[in-house]
């Protein structure tokens, strides 16, 4: 695999980059913090001696004008990438979003409009290269309209719908679209939240993601138990959803 990892300096993205690098796949990192990119690239090389040169480029999910140039850089460095993995996104609690309309605009733009824009750039390149993987981390929060994730969940729901359609439309052309729906994962993003049951670790989530890519699956829940949890939640009637707080 020759993979571009957008968000590969932290959390789930970093764990995915580690897994791929460990088994000898080529990795190219995208992120918005230069120091963090340089450190993460150096770390991949120090940990995995077979990674002679890990390269990176600046790319900010809030600046779509830079997407094309960043992917061009990845194409040059990797010699036409065949996997694009997107873990970069924003998170804020419902209370924070309700208190700040500008934050709501930013989060929904980053998580939906800009994510789809980035995927479109990546999809076109992948199809030109003869196919490959487009893996995007969405969320279980997009499966049902729920009180604590009304806005964040809506942004993720849009991404999930988009990815599902991409799979329907381009699988025959050799594009393996994977929509990843993590439940609660213990990363910096969720560090301030109360840990619910079935919380996952980034490394285990990364293992599930890489294995789903290998098997060319269109959708995974990770940790796997969340498939069942969401199955129940999806079938709860509205009068129950109005009463409960999750």
């Amino acid at each position, binding site marked *: 695999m020759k993979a571009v990892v957008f968000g590969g*300096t*932290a*959390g789930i993205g*970093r764990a995915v980059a580690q897994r791929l690098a460990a088994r000898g796949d080529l990795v190219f990192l995208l992120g918005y*913090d230069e120091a*963090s990119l340089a*450190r*993460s690239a*150096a*770390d991949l090389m*120090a*940990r995995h*001696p077979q990674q002679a040169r890990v390269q990176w480029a600046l790319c900010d999910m809030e600046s779509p004008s830079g997407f094309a140039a960043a992917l061009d850089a990845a194409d040059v460095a990797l010699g036409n990438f065949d996997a694009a993995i997107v873990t970069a996104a924003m998170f804020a609690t419902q209370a924070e979003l309700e208190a700040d309309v500008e934050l709501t605009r930013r989060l929904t733009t980053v998580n939906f409009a800009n994510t789809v824009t980035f995927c479109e750039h990546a999809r076109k390149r992948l199809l030109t290269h003869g196919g490959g993987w487009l893996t995007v981390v969405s969320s279980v929060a997009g499966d049902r309209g729920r009180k604590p994730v009304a806005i964040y969940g809506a942004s993720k729901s849009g991404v999930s719908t988009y990815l599902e359609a991409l799979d329907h439309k381009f699988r025959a052309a050799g594009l393996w679209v994977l929509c990843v729906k993590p439940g609660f994962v213990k*990363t*910096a993003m969720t*560090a301030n939240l109360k840990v619910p049951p079935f919380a996952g670790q980034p490394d285990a989530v990364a293992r599930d993601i890489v294995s789903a890519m290998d098997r060319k699956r269109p959708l995974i829940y990770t940790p796997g138990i969340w498939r069942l949890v969401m199955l129940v939640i999806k079938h709860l009637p509205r009068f129950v959803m109005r009463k409960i707080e999750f």
Partner: protein
Amino acid sequence: MDTLTGWGRLPEPGRELLDEDFETLTRGAVLSRGLGRSYGDSSLPANASDRVANSRFANRIIAFDQSTGVLRAEAGLTLVNLVRLMLPRGWFPPVVPGTKFVTLGGMVASDVHGKNHHREGCFGAHVRALRVRLADDRIVECSRESDADLFDGCLGGMGLLGHILEVEFAMHRIPSPWIWMERERVSDIQAFLESIATAAPQWPMTMGWIDCVKRGKGMGRGLLMAGRWATTEEAPTRHPGSPHEITMPMELPNWALNRTTTGFFNAGIFWGHVRNRASATMAPERFFFPLDAILEWNRAYGPRGFTQYQCVVPRAAGPPAVYEFMKRLTTLGAASPLCVIKDCGPEGRGVLSFPLEGTSIAVDMPVSADIQRVVNGLNEFIISVGGRVYLTKDRFTTAEHFRAMEPRLPQFQALRAKWDPTGRLRSAQSRRLFGDKA
């Protein structure tokens, strides 16, 4: 109310901040912590509102030199991660403590020692440089050459001089990824001290497990283990891999570990080793970190929590002092399934570093109404023989006892006055032992 706990599971109110960017996270923080493996209150805040930065997500390796073994990494890199990465490549950390679930930052702040202390000293003896965030938010790089007083103070300084951001140290080349180990059954404490003294010059690593429930004749019976890296000829050709780990499935009730069950457990371990002497190759993780095989074993002590009393009895006080300590321990009724004896070499350069030449004894004890009396009793004895306790394990030593056992305290406090003049950095432990304001 959010709480934080150490390995002994006694909570303090507070919460921690986590981020990959630990450097930014420590700005304005008064305490940093890693995996929370110190037993007592070393990594707990003095105040519920104190800003506590957790280094766990900052675990990148910055550089590794294949020819010299010099490694530089962020403070949150864990020992388990490092060992599993480097063992197949023929490198091992120079000094490791009894658990692999610690961070580099914690290893420096505790200046950890291991089974090879008599040969290699503490971890700090192998550290070449530290990147530290000071109380006034400046960041400095210190070493034996530059700001050496800060460097020495950080080794074993419990994070009270600054937040350790990066650690540079030298890994050791190993001839094979296996340990050659010899185990001997020892009948009492006298024989134990003799055996450990005989083993020290021959073996780079030694440690002993003793049964401290057994009273009278046979008090201090146990097993002595000695090891060294196996040569390529002795080592099996396969890689030792990672040991099978099981997780303690639930918290046991408070009464589960008591004098009787502990006595049975200890007798089982003692008689379970059928032969008086055995030798074999062993996977390093099993040799160095035997208790890590059961994840979250601290839950066995139940909701009451537990502490570890670890002290060092100076060589000058001799075997009679160790014998007397064991006697006190059994009369005070401190039943413990885990009692570990180690041989310590000379004191290192860490200003508050724990080891000094002599015998280190570590005993686990459940927290009970009686615990303060037991710890006080043991401390009084330790002070009388010129020994001291290990802050990383401590939760119950009083400020008065600490002052009496720690002649280096004024020197350390002077360093704090120099590097943290406004007295910002503090922990629940420094409040208890150093008289820091809450």
